[in-house]
């Protein structure tokens, strides 16, 4: 198994307060990592560090062989679609291809094809000409996932992809993510609040905790750990 991403002794702060301290973990190609943790435990900060939007204060993030920041597909947390922003689904999805365009100004037919395939894959091809302000929550998240797929060659970073979706739409979203992980061998890193679902699908769990040491390991180890049994106990 090849390591795709390694986080070494990472420390990151927000407004002068350390939210992540001395975090280390390593994920392999094809892994499905779920990041759990309460609000304010630094999940979104970690994602921003992994994406390179936010510099780390200490430690480093090492990308595996051949992984470039532009190979990462990102689905932001609860993307506040501005009320009434005029953009069609097609325009939004293809903007995912932008990272690999470099400085060339226009999309080629190859990128148009990538965008079309991503939309077909997620069942939103018929919405391509629709304005994104007329979409339901589930359709919107699919649009953002399609955009992330356009950007992703190897790694998908999903920040709470089912927030605000009804159970049906959430389940569909999870199925799509599982399929991308299994069939396409896409490495997935997902921030989630859904412990049961995470233990079910993920191959690795990272639990960030502000009160004690973070946990990193397999779902089984997590369920047996002190942190995990506490959380799972609460769920039951």
């Amino acid at each position: 198994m090849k390591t795709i991403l390694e986080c070494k002794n990472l420390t990151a702060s927000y407004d002068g307060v350390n939210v992540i301290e001395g975090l280390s973990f390593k994920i392999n190609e094809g892994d499905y990592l779920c990041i759990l943790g309460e609000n304010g435990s630094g999940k979104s900060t970690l994602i921003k560090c992994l994406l390179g939007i936010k510099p780390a204060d200490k430690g480093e993030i090492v990308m595996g062989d051949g992984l470039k920041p532009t190979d990462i597909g990102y689905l932001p947390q609860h993307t506040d679609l501005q009320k009434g922003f005029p953009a069609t689904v097609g325009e939004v999805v293809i903007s995912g291809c932008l990272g690999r365009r470099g400085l060339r100004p226009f999309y080629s037919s190859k990128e148009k094809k990538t965008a079309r395939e991503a939309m077909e894959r997620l069942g939103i091809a018929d919405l391509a000409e629709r304005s994104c302000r007329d979409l339901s929550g589930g359709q919107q998240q699919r649009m953002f996932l399609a955009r992330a797929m356009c950007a992703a060659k190897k790694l998908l970073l999903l920040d709470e992809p089912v927030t605000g979706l009804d159970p049906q739409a959430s389940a569909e979203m999870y199925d799509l993510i599982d399929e991308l992980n299994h069939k396409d061998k896409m490495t997935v890193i997902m921030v989630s609040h859904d412990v049961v679902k995470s233990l079910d699908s993920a191959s690795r769990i990272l639990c960030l905790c502000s009160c004690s040491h973070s946990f990193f390991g397999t779902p089984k180890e997590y369920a047996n750990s002190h942190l995990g049994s506490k959380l799972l106990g609460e769920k039951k």
Partner: protein
Amino acid sequence: MSENIRLMFTPEFFAAILLPALIGGIAVTICSSLLGVTLVLKRYSMIGDGLSHIGYGALSVAAVMNLAPLKVALPVVVIAAFILLRLSENSRLSGDSAIALFSTTALSIGILVSSKAGLTNDVSHYMFGSILAMSTGDVVLSVILSVIVILTFILLYNRIFSVTFDESFARATGVNAGAYNMIFAVLTAVTVVLGMMMMGALLISSLIVIPTLTAMRVCRSFRGVVLTSGAVSVASFLIGMFAALVLNTAPGASIVIVNVIFFICFTLAGRALRRTGRS
């Protein structure tokens, strides 16, 4: 009225006054409407307004100190645009209150300085605009600027879309969003200063905001909004100018009113479209 029209079509008037006004005006309206799409959608609508007041302050100070107005106002407004964009991005003072703070301060300084020095003529030009008094230099500058803005828009169109639509995603895909915000700050500042001489400090923000709002009533796509707002803006300018000459009204205000009429028509059309779309 017929006297006005006859006067308008004398070759002398046309070549000396109307033609420069038309060329400069079309250039500035295209710039302001294109930049306006991003500013409105990024919720920076008031930046144009704030910058124009800052520009007014700078021009007044320049007039009193006997300096070339443009050479003072342009750098001041560019710096102000940087600061305002920065403030709206990462400070606790939210963007709109920052703009209010800056613009009223600059406006007050401008008024204090010019009233103390007893200068009212030049300065009132900048308050209400004087499109029929655009100098050759102003026109040349407007045309160069509009070429730059249009080229920027065409070449960076996809990036502009991405930064406007979702800045954090754009950053994550490796687009240098900060650089684009700076480019925008500079272009907006230059457009505002030029537009101010034409439309006046009080009305320039309408040129930035209204065409985009108008286009958004009807268009579904970003591309549609960009193209429509440019077209609406130029059409409003031409109709407003013509009306002002024929009816002998203030050009700046007439152009704004035509823009508003377009806005109302597009709003009604948008409603009708949606109703037929639903049924």
